[in-house]
């Protein structure tokens, strides 16, 4: 019995880890590699969620012709239940709709990313931050007030497109999510070690000099924002399909902008492994707090949520103060397509001596052991 609960908790943990990992990796590519401080990342997640909430149920109702006379939003549960019974023995439609939603969300959120970044992408950091925060707020306001989109402050049910999996559904969806996350990871990793990654780093380090050697800085920044907005929206799509619902109130600034920023600041700016480590640490902590929430709630005369917010805020401040480079700092990456050994030989032929690599420093444990050994003597 306890094992069962523990297993469910682990699956939930892993699921949220994957969702947040998609967001943090994209954020890392935008800020860590390109230097765009995207403080409105929640709007892309919300964009993905809205696409799922608005289209999945409507398209499936049209396909199966379920209650065509009823209003989609007001009779949402009834319609969704009926669609789910259809989906239980129709795997092809389910998978097709799922893939369609992913593609639709990619396309729409690429456009959205272009629109929101357009006003300020050529300006300096502060303006961009203000505009993006404002745009994320606008997205939330539209979601909360435009009832036909995702049901305003209520929610809209998302039909279970993997209903045909039966009992294996949770695990099956987890595997699908893992594949998506892995795909995004590989794509971003490939991009960061390609010539594009080099250009992007040049833009981060010094936009003026990048422009001087003929790189279109504004164009590159726009492309990165558009691409990363599109990829981030997949997190919103998967989240919608995972909880079978889309709540416009759940895409808050603290949940989908502040926490991802915190995660990749913890892990290390400018490398994907750091983002993964930070996300894992933070998600575990947060899930533990949520798990033990009710035990703490007895002792304090307020909601534990606020305590959690204070804790995470203080954590971020401490990290910025004492370890601004994160747990895993950025290392110089070897670019694909460059012949490093060739460079070596060329330099040696010209008679330039290359300083030999420094011997690897001992880590903390080894230093401690060495000190103990010397003391014994």
């Amino acid at each position, binding site marked *: 019995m306890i094992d069962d609960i523990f297993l469910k908790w682990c699956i939930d943990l892993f699921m949220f880890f994957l969702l947040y990992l998609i967001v943090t990796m994209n954020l890392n590519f935008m800020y860590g590699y390109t230097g765009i401080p995207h403080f409105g990342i929640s709007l892309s997640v919300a964009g993905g969620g809205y696409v799922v909430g608005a289209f999945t149920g409507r398209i499936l109702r049209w396909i199966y012709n379920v209650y065509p006379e009823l209003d989609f939003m007001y009779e949402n549960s009834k319609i969704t239940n009926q669609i789910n019974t259809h989906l239980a023995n129709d795997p092809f439609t389910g998978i097709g709709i799922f893939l369609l939603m992913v593609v639709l969300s990619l396309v729409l959120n690429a456009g959205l990313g272009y629109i929101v970044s357009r006003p300020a992408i050529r300006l300096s*950091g502060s303006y961009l931050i203000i505009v993006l925060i*404002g745009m994320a707020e606008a997205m939330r306001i539209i979601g909360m007030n435009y009832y036909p989109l995702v049901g305003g402050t209520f929610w809209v049910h998302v039909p279970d497109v993997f209903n045909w999996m039966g009992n294996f559904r949770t695990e099956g969806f987890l595997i699908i999510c893992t594949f998506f996350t892995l795909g995004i990871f590989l794509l971003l990793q490939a991009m960061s070690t390609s010539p594009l990654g080099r250009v992007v780093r040049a833009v981060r380090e010094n936009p003026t000099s990048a422009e001087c050697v003929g790189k279109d800085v504004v164009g590159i920044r726009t492309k990165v924002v558009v691409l990363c907005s599109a990829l981030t929206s997949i997190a919103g799509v998967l989240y919608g399909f995972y909880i079978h619902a889309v709540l416009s109130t759940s895409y808050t600034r603290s949940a989908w902008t502040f926490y991802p920023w915190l995660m990749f600041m913890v892990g290390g700016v400018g490398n994907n492994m750091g983002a993964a480590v930070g996300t894992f640490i933070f998600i575990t902590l947060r899930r533990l707090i949520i798990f033990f929430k009710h035990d703490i709630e007895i002792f304090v005369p307020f909601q534990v949520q606020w305590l959690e917010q204070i804790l995470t805020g203080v954590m971020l*401040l401490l990290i910025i103060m004492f370890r601004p480079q994160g747990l895993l700092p950025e290392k110089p990456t070897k670019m694909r397509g460059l012949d490093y050994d060739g460079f070596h030989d060329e330099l040696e032929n010209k008679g330039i001596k290359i300083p030999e690599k420094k011997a690897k420093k001992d880590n903390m444990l080894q230093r401690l052991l060495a000190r103990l050994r010397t003391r014994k003597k």
Partner: protein
Amino acid sequence: MFPPLIKDALVYANCVTMMSIGFTLVYLISRIPNFAQSTFAVVGVYCTFSMVRILEINPYVAMPLGVILGALLALVVYLGIVNTLTKYGAGPILLTISLLALQQIFLAGINIYADYVRNVLGIYSRGFMLRANDFRVGDMPGVLIVSSVTVIVVIVGMHYMLTRTQFGIAMRATVENAPLASVLGINIKKVSIISWMITGGLAGLAGTFLPLWFSSGPGSGGMLATSVFAASVVGGLTNIYGAILGGYVISLLEVWGSYLLMKTFGLWIGAYRLLIPLALMSIILMYEPGGLAALIERLRVKFLRAKKVREEESK
């Protein structure tokens, strides 16, 4: 005498202008957008709330308290975070993130206070409106008079300080070129501390007026924040007068624009009110990134040149 729409617009504009003056001031001095500022206003909101609902006295007693608390919080933010992090070598982006973190911490603190008041004292502490506790002069609500007078005093005081006092000149010098100012013997840290405290005090003051006219709660800072950002950006983020102009332009357009839209398209459009300042901000950034201040400056230069040409021709 006054239609309610003008009252709405003026009270809102007064609050937004006071906050955008502070936002611009901090941006000029420290070069970072102060995202924690909206929480100073929420502190002011809860000062008024505590005076009226808990102590049951005149709401205007909260004014000095709001100023002091806001200024103290700003002092803590500056000395504790901004100054320390700058010493550790953090850039503007790291400072911005840390201010967002601080905003979250402060907001959580205010929420804890609200929860405490509701659970322990049994007073409803979210989404309150205290119009009934305000005094009236004929048709005019007290908050309109008091906030307008305060804004005028603040603007005149700022103008006097920036142009006539030694400190104001030191402040302007710091804005122009901080290292050079410090070479000339200006204590930059003191200037920064006082600017931050002015910002906090103004935001706290703006917050104390809010619940007397609008429905307020822990979220009202966030409601104001978007307009304040837009007002400051439209004003140009380069001088205080731009912020004043931007504050009034944005908030009056927001209130009246949403009213006009509601009249033409129906009431549902009122919910999207915050999109008006955002749209204005985007337009300004696309066509005139320097804001209204730069626009006016350009027009002035054009006008002067034309005048000069005319004078030369007449000779």
